[in-house]
């Protein structure tokens, strides 16, 4: 189990970025870390993976194989994605052949379209994010740390990322990620830790943080219990849709309040069942 004890961090003589963080992360857990911009989430992640060292406090139980996906991955390199991943595999102790095979599998799984041989620095944000994800998975990690991994990924990659997170957790690894969207947190995390507040269990009927009010409404759609399967819909193409997360038989959609009614009409017409609708800042669900 990864354990942080009274971890604090500041740079030089600046103000404290993190203060007295006590956090236990057992194997198999998916932990979401929330907090406002600049609240020290990224610093906490960098301490978790061992890139930054805490000014005070200790980190114990860090596993040997760690996958880390930082928030910005915008390499200036002329290396191609495949060459980069092969290098990273070799650094992790794989042979060149194994590293290249594994890199190829991951690139296929994440559907890195046309980016295999292109220089890293020419990749779009989403594709660069896929390369960053792939390098973290070259060797199955016992701890996977992701800094806002959903930003920039397309909808199909969202599904793959959810799968990856589940795979790592099912194999007994811990997953830690930061994310601003509550719908994603609710769908993925088994626990939430607020950096500038107290730790608590993730539960959908509690507003996560009063300070963090989204403008969007959250719509959860499910397949009806009986009857026909609903029509497949490209939700992100609809007007006002901010973010789409697809789970097993449900879809969580963040939509601008003005476009909410139109979205619901479309959903019902196509055979979906509306599970819940929550307006921005509203504390409880309306069923």
């Amino acid at each position, binding site marked *: 189990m990864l354990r942080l004890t009274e971890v604090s961090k500041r*740079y030089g003589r600046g103000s404290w970025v993190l203060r007295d963080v006590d956090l236990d992360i057992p194997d198999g857990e998916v932990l979401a870390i929330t907090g406002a911009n600049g609240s020290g989430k990224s610093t906490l992640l*960098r301490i978790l*993976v*061992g*890139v*930054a*060292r805490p000014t005070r406090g200790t980190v114990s139980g860090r596993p*040997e194989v*760690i*996958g*880390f996906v*930082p*928030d*910005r*991955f*915008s*390499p*200036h*390199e*002329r*290396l191609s994605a495949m*060459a980069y991943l092969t*290098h*990273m595999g*070799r*650094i*992790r*102790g794989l042979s060149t052949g194994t590293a290249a095979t594994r890199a190829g599998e991951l690139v296929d799984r994440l559907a890195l379209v046309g980016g295999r041989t292109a220089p890293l620095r020419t990749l779009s944000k989403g594709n660069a994010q896929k390369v*960053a994800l792939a*390098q*973290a998975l070259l060797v199955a990690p016992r701890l996977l740390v992701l800094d806002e991994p959903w930003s920039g990924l397309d909808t199909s990659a969202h599904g793959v990322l959810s799968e990856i997170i589940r795979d790592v957790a099912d194999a007994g690894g811990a997953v830690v990620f930061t994310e601003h969207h509550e719908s994603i947190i609710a769908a993925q995390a088994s626990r939430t830790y607020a950096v500038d507040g107290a730790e608590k269990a993730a539960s959908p009927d509690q507003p996560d943080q009063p300070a963090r009010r989204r403008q969007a409404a959250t719509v959860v759609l499910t397949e009806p219990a009986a009857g026909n399967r609903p029509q497949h819909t490209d939700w992100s193409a609809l007007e006002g849709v901010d973010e789409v997360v697809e789970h097993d038989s449900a879809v969580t959609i963040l939509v601008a309040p003005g476009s909410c009614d139109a979205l619901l009409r479309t959903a019902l017409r196509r055979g979906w069942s509306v599970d819940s609708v929550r307006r921005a800042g509203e504390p409880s669900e309306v069923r």
Partner: protein
Amino acid sequence: MIGLIRYGFATMLHSQRYLAPVLWFTGVLGVFSSGDSGPLAPVYALGAALLFVCSTWFTIVLLGVEDPAHRAITIVAAGRPRRLLLASIAVAMLSSLVLGGFALVFPLLVARHPVAGLDLVVGLEAQLTCASVGIAIGLLCSRLVIRRQGFALVTALGLVIVALLAPGMVPVNVLIHRMSEGSTSAALVAPVSGLLAIAVVILAACATATQFVAARRD
């Protein structure tokens, strides 16, 4: 470790930022070492002085190629930050050795010098001494220690000038001075070996200091 060194070379070669220091080194060496047919030690002294400046430059560039997010990934993949720094030093040293080897052979190709085995030994030791101190200064002035590029450049320039030109400064200034005096290579082996040992200690100390500062900066 080999994976890290390969990756270091790959990023450096692809970035093409090694070109400026390498061109400068070969160009200056070519201009000043042709047409001279005297003893080899002063010629090798010039090569070592050039390599000193070049390895500082090369090290700063090498450690600046990866942006911080990218470097964080490499550190996590390598397991320990120290390993990545050691690999960078190895890349800088191996590159310096290639240039140093060129500086040893080139004068023999363009002019007739009386050559003895000891000349080459002294020449190699001189190259290693200068490369070590150059890399040491490069580490201290890299992005890991000095974030602002302007400051880093001025600091590097100051340190290089002091190490090279301040009279009696151990080991680079003393080395160049001794080798240019016209002593025989047999008389130079012992003092140059001593200077090389000092240079290696300086490199180890600067590497430790860089790792110490970088770990607290991150």
